[in-house]
């Protein structure tokens, strides 16, 4: 039995930690319902008249500032983010999962080198390749296209998918695959009915992580695209206007941009937990 004092102290500590980590998020959420005047008031006050004008401005695309009306295209940026991140993750899963399986199961000449080269894409500073890439993209017509950006996004998402799922495939017992094949199932059917389902928690984790990385990317789209394909991370720059920074809209934009990732995380969670409960093959 725990003493009441212990429980009180524990609750207090938990509250403190909670406040520490959640404060920025809560503050952004509050800011998104404030006018710029409320936000910039000193000292800051948590009491204010909530307003929806930040959200209305974002969704309608008309931003009225002290120096006049500004057109912003934030909803289009949001759509771009969804398209870019989703397609990048799908392409990475289609390419990366079978590759990860091959790296996990078969030892072939140069296999380790190939896997490591893919990982090394994560070490290099992106700017190193971006400027030459800009030249190539403009020359072959990939500049400012979804296709071109999704291609470059593979530098972020593919290594993640490959290396995370590879570990999970290595944990799937080879005996299970042999057993399924001896039952009379083909190699391909064994891959889809045994290996993929058993590595699903890893595939889910890799998909979620690479989605977040792709979603948060800034520099690729800043340089390799114009506003027609740019995601929210670049689109948020528009709130730095001639008449000052629109903090309220930035906060609202942030809240909106978190929602898709949040939905995906909640949806993926059930697969992440599934992995913990399936357990090993032996009892």
């Amino acid at each position, binding site marked *: 039995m725990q003493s009441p004092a212990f429980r009180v102290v524990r609750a207090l500590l938990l509250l403190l930690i909670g406040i520490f980590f959640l404060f920025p998020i809560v503050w952004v959420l509050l800011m998104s319902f404030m006018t710029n005047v409320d936000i910039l008031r000193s000292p800051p006050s948590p009491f204010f008249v909530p307003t929806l004008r930040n959200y209305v401005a974002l969704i309608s695309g008309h931003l009225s500032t002290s120096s006049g009306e500004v057109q912003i295209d934030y909803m289009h940026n949001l759509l771009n983010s969804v398209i870019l991140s989703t397609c990048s993750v799908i392409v990475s899963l289609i390419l990366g999962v079978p590759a990860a399986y091959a790296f996990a199961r078969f030892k072939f000449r140069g296999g380790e080198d190939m896997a490591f080269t893919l990982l090394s894409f994560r070490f290099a500073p992106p700017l190193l390749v971006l400027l030459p890439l800009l030249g190539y993209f403009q020359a072959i017509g990939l500049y400012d296209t979804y296709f071109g950006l999704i291609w470059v996004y593979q530098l972020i998402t593919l290594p993640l998918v490959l290396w995370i799922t590879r570990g999970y495939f290595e944990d799937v017992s080879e005996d*299970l695959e042999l*057993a*399924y094949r001896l039952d009379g199932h083909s*190699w391909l059917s064994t891959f889809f009915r045994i290996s993929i389902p058993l590595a699903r928690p890893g595939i889910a984790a890799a998909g979620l992580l690479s989605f977040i990385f792709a979603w948060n990317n800034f520099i690729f789209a800043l340089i390799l695209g114009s506003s027609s394909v740019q995601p929210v991370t670049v689109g948020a720059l528009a709130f730095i206007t001639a008449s000052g920074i629109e903090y309220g809209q930035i906060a609202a934009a942030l809240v909106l941009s978190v929602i898709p990732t949040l939905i995906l995380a909640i949806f993926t969670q059930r697969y992440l937990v599934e992995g913990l409960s399936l357990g090993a*093959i032996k009892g």
Partner: protein
Amino acid sequence: MSFLSIDRLSKSYRKNEVIRDLSFAVDRGEFLVVFGPSGAGKTVLLRLIAGMVRPDRGRVLLGGSDITDDNPEQRDIAMAFQNFALYPHMSAFDNIGSPLRAAKVGEAERRRRVEEAAKLLRIDHVLGHLPRALSNGQKQRTALARSLVSEPSLLLLDDPLRNVDAKVRYEMRLELPRLLRARDTTVVYVTQDYKEAMALGDRIAVLADGGFQQIDTPERVYNAPASARIARLFGDPPINLLPAVRSGAGLRVASSEIALDGAAPDRAECTMGVRPEDVIVSLEQASGAIPVEIDAVTPLNDRQVMLLRADDGTEIFASQPQGTHVVPGGLPSGRERPRAWARLDVSRSHFFETASGARV
């Protein structure tokens, strides 16, 4: 005409030759036990037969046709694994039904045959469970049901009783032959438990150092082991292997003279193998018996196992049935060791060459 033949099979990993020029044949309906110490290559051999591992050289023939280059799914072979290898995301029913689904057996027929196999193995009440909800005994039965349900022409069992508790293991040892005889299945069974090998096999193939040391009936393997090494693998406590030197008409063993009656090896030196049950211990001096001290006494069921030490330090195991216990209550406490005399039953002994260990 043998059903399964292995023809000069070899397999190396890196520089380590696990299987070397291995050949054997199994008849239709025969139960062959492959027995060997761990690391002898038993599992590799099964994998070669199953098609999971490709041999470096040699052929595998099943029912007269060469299947060496066939994929596992093309071979009419079923296998039960030591770790059960149940698909953790499928119910027991789907696990057992997997070979039938591969063979495109219809839904109703599949249900009937899965339930029949489950009934036979007494797991029909847990068919809806996932493997993690099954006990080890039930998992093992599910794995066996899966391997039996498609009535394969060849069944490979990779130490299937290794991971179940003693009671289930004993039950299955009695049940398995009955189940398999009824179907006339050809079985290759791998184990490292000599009792299991003796209980189940029509023949036992003793695998060691990459090759078969002896392929024979259980009686012959036990009573006429081909080498000292095989003799040591069968029996608990293990056989006593004593260096023996010819001296006159008798043998000199553990610094004592013992008489030879009957056939004796016609060489100056050899290794004498005496099973513990063929060592007769007495507290009274007898001619031709080795003077020993009783070093330790352990009960083994109704038998008593004794560790004897001869005057020159040679250790001898003796195992005595109930009613002939020399020290009925075990050893007295204290440092004193009882003096006794051990007579070796020469007529039931085995003689092996000292250097090679081969039977003389």
